[in-house]
């Protein structure tokens, strides 16, 4: 029996386990929307395609499933671009469907035509323009397969109007075969043994984890490895949550605003094992001053991540989880007594650094410190909430002052640094985890970039909380202008802003304005009582608070600057 492309599409989505789509209709997508109308897949209508893409992304990050979003041809598709790039830079599995004008019109500057495959080529893992209805089923199977295997990432499928309307006998294909695509999961045993041999003789080793540990669900294996040999764990921003905090082996996260102990540990280490970490510039600081004393091993499923920024001595191509299992298998063959004493001294040294300069700030009982708000969110949620962030100071304080114990708990745009990501991502995360509290820790600037999604949250009864750390500045920009441009606050002041309480109320949400430190906890507790609708909290914080410590641009990790406290 033959079916239309639209019917095949919806069938395939179900076959691939899709139960939630974020999409925005348009002319060329109408036949698909007609089919979705009868389907039991939940379709959520964001109020901007960018919001839809970030929501699909937040859903994917918080559940480990593939996020799905739709946009129509032309402007619908181009509105998705920032969302696709955000997912790409953090390797998030997503399948993005875009409508396209009919095949006979492509290339003719038709109404709402955009070459979205061309526009997104550098920011997708792969993409398809489906020209023949007989290919739809195979393409969708390949798209899901590519999105979630190997190094995950967004895959775009462009669907011309006539192709969706045409009929085909092909139904959803289950096995996928792509000749040139065979990601390596198992690490090379020789390399793994070499990596362990170096560890056996290391006096001051550090395990450096990244987002790859979360993507491959390797936290359990990581914990067993770390505890077996008593190793210190440092993370990148993206790796936060992959190893539990608190835990006696957790040191913290390294990089521009990471903690003193982590940056010192990397600087003084004699051996670093990077696991699912790509040595991004925000984590390394100036490269010629980065971990110069350390030999390095790197486990990564993407060969291009190895040796890209930092030269390593032992490259291991493979999936973090699979390789760590192999590592655990070989551990017993080595002598762990030999350097035990050295490693204990090393851990003591790290502990000393931890106590010397932990994350901190100067509390005030007159004016709300932004860090205090994050600490209180941690307290009232018992450390169990999913936290999304916007970008800027809010993001750094969220990472510094909330303690994450679960790999899918901290959701942040690390690679692209997309303002406006956190709120729609929180909606996606809450829809994927209805039983969890979900907080977006936001800046006032970032929140305004996708605040239209308040409407979405109200419509679908999504009980997310937004905590705006409102400094009436583009805070992180102001901080750089303060430190490096003589306090010339060019275009970073946001004194003109809406009354957030009224704004919330106008959308049908609950809004709170908080001006005194003594009110912070009460309001947060109050917000937890409100279910099934969003709560917007406007915390008026100390306007010129800076994020410390800080590794200035061009400095090495151990050249941090500190604030007063």
């Amino acid at each position, binding site marked *: 029996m033959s079916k239309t492309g639209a019917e095949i599409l919806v069938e395939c989505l179900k076959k691939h386990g899709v139960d939630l789509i974020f999409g925005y209709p348009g002319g060329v997508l109408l036949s698909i929307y007609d089919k979705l109308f009868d389907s039991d897949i939940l379709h959520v209508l964001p109020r901007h395609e960018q919001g839809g893409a970030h929501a699909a992304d937040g859903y994917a990050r918080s559940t480990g499933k593939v996020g799905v979003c739709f946009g129509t041809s032309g402007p619908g598709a181009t509105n998705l671009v920032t969302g696709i790039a955000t997912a790409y830079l953090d390797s998030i599995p997503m399948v993005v469907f875009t409508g396209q004008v009919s095949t006979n019109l492509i290339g003719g500057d038709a109404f709402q035509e955009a070459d979205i495959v061309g526009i997104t*080529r550098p920011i997708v893992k792969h993409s398809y*323009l489906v020209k023949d209805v007989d290919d739809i089923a195979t393409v969708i199977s390949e798209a899901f397969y*590519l999105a979630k295997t190997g190094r995950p990432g967004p895959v775009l499928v462009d669907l011309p109007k006539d192709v969706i309307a045409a009929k085909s006998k092909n139904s959803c294909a289950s096995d996928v075969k792509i*000749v*040139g*695509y065979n990601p*390596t999961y198992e690490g090379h045993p020789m390399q793994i043994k070499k990596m362990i041999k170096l560890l056996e003789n290391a006096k001051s080793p550090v395990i450096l984890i990244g987002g790859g540990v979360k993507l491959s669900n390797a936290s359990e294996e990581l914990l067993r490895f770390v505890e077996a040999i008593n190793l210190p764990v440092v993370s990148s921003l993206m790796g936060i949550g992959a190893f539990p905090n608190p835990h006696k082996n957790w040191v913290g996260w390294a990089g521009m605003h990471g903690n003193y102990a982590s940056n010192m540990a990397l600087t003084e280490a004699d051996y670093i094992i990077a696991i699912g970490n790509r040595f991004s510039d925000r984590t390394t600081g100036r490269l010629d001053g980065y971990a110069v004393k350390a030999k390095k091993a790197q486990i990564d499923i993407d*060969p*291009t991540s190895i*040796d890209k920024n930092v030269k390593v001595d032992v490259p291991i191509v493979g999936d973090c989880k699979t390789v760590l299992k192999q590592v655990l298998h070989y551990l017993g063959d080595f002598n762990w007594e030999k350097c035990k004493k050295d490693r204990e001294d090393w851990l003591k040294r790290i502990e000393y650094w931890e106590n010397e300069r932990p994350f901190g700030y100067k509390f005030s009982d007159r004016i709300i410190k932004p860090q205090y708000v994050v600490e209180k969110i941690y307290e009232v949620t018992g450390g169990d909430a999913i936290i999304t962030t916007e970008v800027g100071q809010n993001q750094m304080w969220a990472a510094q002052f909330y303690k994450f114990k679960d790999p899918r708990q901290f959701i942040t745009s690390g690679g692209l640094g997309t303002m406006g990501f956190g709120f729609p991502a929180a909606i996606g995360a809450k829809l994927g985890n209805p039983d969890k509290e979900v907080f977006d820790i936001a800046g006032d600037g970032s929140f305004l970039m996708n605040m239209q999604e308040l409407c979405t949250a109200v419509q679908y009864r999504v009980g997310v909380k937004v905590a705006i750390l409102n400094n009436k500045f583009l805070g992180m920009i102001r901080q750089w202008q303060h430190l490096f441009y003589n306090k010339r606050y060019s275009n970073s002041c946001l004194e003109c802003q809406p009354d957030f309480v009224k704004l919330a109320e106008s959308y049908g949400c609950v809004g709170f304005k908080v001006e005194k430190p003594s009110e912070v906890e009460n309001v947060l507790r109050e917000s937890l009582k409100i279910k099934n609708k969003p709560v917007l909290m406007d915390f008026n914080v100390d306007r010129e608070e800076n994020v410390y410590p800080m590794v200035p641009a061009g400095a090495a990790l151990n050249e941090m600057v500190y604030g007063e406290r």
Partner: protein
Amino acid sequence: MRHIISVLVENKFGVLARISGLFSGRGYNIESLSVNATENENISIMTIVTRGDDHVIDQIIKQLRKLVNTIKVRDVTQVEHVERELILVKVHATQRTRSDILNIIDTFRGKVVDINKESLVIEMTGDQNKLNALVDVLEPYGIIEIIRSGTIAIARGSKSTTDFTKQDIKNQEE
């Protein structure tokens, strides 16, 4: 260092754009690029000539392998190989200079493929150095136009780049 990289790709929509985008997006240079069909109609072979230090070439090769539509990537300059390029040169040739030029072409084992009162078109194949030498020698006579095909290369020996095995696919990930 100059490298010649052979890339076996699935003959699919947009592959060339993905490959050229990979170079331009990372600031790598393509000195020449040629794309051809192979014995297998579903597979094309691209020959890319590029320059870079070891680190850059290593990244280029890994990035090429990462593309979903690439089947095999090989740095031909790492093995014994033969490389060839085709050149067509249009050069001024008057009655006075024509015989001189014909002598030169003869020495280079080139061919004349078009001739008229004022000019000649010369066809020649060879490696880059040989073609450059020809151009140098013809320069004084007045070159009107040059078209070069870009380099293609093949490894010596009896193995083929285009018969790839499962093992090749596995190896390329290592």
